[in-house]
């Protein structure tokens, strides 16, 4: 096939062809993002390690199994309640590795700086990154810096890559979730996304909500100390728990049933979501994880999580089931059911 024919194949079928240009939704973590990966990146780069589309790739090198991940951070504003883009970059990468059960070791940090960006602000970001790396027990061992002209970047973008070691006997991947698994959520949702939104022009509001940005590898280690048989882990970042659950249901070809009453939503987050017409299930988190574990071990895993500062409110929110493969269904607060669907682009505030 010629390149032109190849490209044609990649941009068919419909989803990509509908949008001849990239739109914001392509970065939202919902269906548009997934389609871009599934219909363009994955088939083009085409290899077995990429194919499962987990947040990290795990492969054997000599006698070790390594986890390898990359991430880019473009959050706006760069300083938000509870953190900044720098610690988000470190913790986010650490978490991508931790979601494979890996012990995170080394990070890279590439900076794209906009001409005119204040050195004071850069210092704050970088200093925080150093602190976050120390806290997470990782080293930033290589990096790069580029500067783009004013107007061609958004103050600062950070790209990272991360490497960690996966312990023996640990096989954590989305596709390993099984019908019957208990689904554990490590704590209350919506904090990061609402903290960011509270600063967004046009939507600005006052709150004391702080981002939950935090490294989760210790929490995962505590869980692994109870059992190696953790099937799947996901940190519900962009797209919230709804997207994370849908991705796992899709990858593992299982259905998911959750109980809305079991999902902890802080009062302020709930209020902010009410005000803006948002569903907390789609709001980003940066210090939470979802775990699929065999039902019998779940209580002990939860006990271990609750002994960790980042898992104090860990709770079972539902189960994986054999029915309605690929679909997430929730019990509503009044006892009926509703689908928790994959988001399409970004979640938008509404007035209706």
């Amino acid at each position, binding site marked *: 096939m010629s390149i032109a024919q190849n490209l044609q194949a990649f941009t068919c079928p419909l989803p990509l062809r509908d949008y001849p240009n990239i739109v914001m939704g392509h970065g939202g973590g919902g269906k548009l993002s997934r389609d871009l990966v599934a219909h363009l990146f994955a088939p083009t780069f085409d290899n077995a390690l990429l194919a499962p589309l987990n947040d990290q790739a795990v492969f054997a090198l000599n006698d070790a199994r390594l986890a390898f991940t990359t991430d880019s951070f473009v959050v706006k504003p760069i300083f938000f309640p509870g953190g900044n883009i720098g610690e988000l970059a470190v913790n986010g990468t650490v978490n991508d590795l931790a979601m494979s059960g890996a012990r995170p070791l080394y990070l890279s940090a590439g900076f794209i700086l906009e001409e005119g960006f204040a050195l004071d602000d850069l210092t704050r970001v970088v200093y925080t990154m150093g602190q976050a790396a120390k806290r997470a027990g990782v080293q930033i061992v290589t990096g790069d810096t580029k500067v783009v002209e004013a107007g061609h970047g958004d103050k600062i973008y950070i790209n990272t890559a991360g490497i960690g070691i996966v312990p023996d006997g640990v096989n954590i991947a989305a596709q390993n979730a099984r019908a019957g698994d208990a689904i554990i959520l490590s704590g209350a949702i919506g904090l990061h996304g609402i903290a960011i939104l*509270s600063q967004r022009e046009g939507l*600005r*509001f*006052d*709150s*004391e*909500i702080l981002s939950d940005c935090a490294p989760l590898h210790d929490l995962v280690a505590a869980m692994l100390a109870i059992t190696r048989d953790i099937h799947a882990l996901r940190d519900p970042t962009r797209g919230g728990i709804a997207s994370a659950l849908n991705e796992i249901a899709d990858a593992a070809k299982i259905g998911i049933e959750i109980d809305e009453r079991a999902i902890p939503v*802080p*009062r*302020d987050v*709930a*209020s*902010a979501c*009410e*005000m803006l*017409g948002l569903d907390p299930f789609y709001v980003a988190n940066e210090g939470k994880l979802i775990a699929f574990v065999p039902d019998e071990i779940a209580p002990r895993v939860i006990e271990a999580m609750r002994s960790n500062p980042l898992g104090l409110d860990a709770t079972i929110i539902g189960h994986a089931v054999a029915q309605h493969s690929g679909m997430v269904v929730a019990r509503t607060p009044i006892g009926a059911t509703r689908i928790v669907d994959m988001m399409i682009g970004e979640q938008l505030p*509404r*007035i*209706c």
Partner: protein
Amino acid sequence: MCLGVPGKITEIYEVGGLKMGRVDFGGVTREACLEYLPDLQIGEYTIVHVGFAISRLTEEDAQATLALFREAGAFEEELGADTG
């Protein structure tokens, strides 16, 4: 149409000739225009739609509504028992 969210007035002031207020929606607060409820006082509740207070909401009304639902239920049950 009409996401209207209840909130409590915590401040009242004027901006550009418009009566404005700070509204607490249960932990998060935002400015809203109070021009349409000129008698609204600090501490009172209102329903806010797209940044405008459109209706005064009283705690008594809310409680009464809930009680009404409860009572109606109880009343109906009695009635049902009699005629059922």
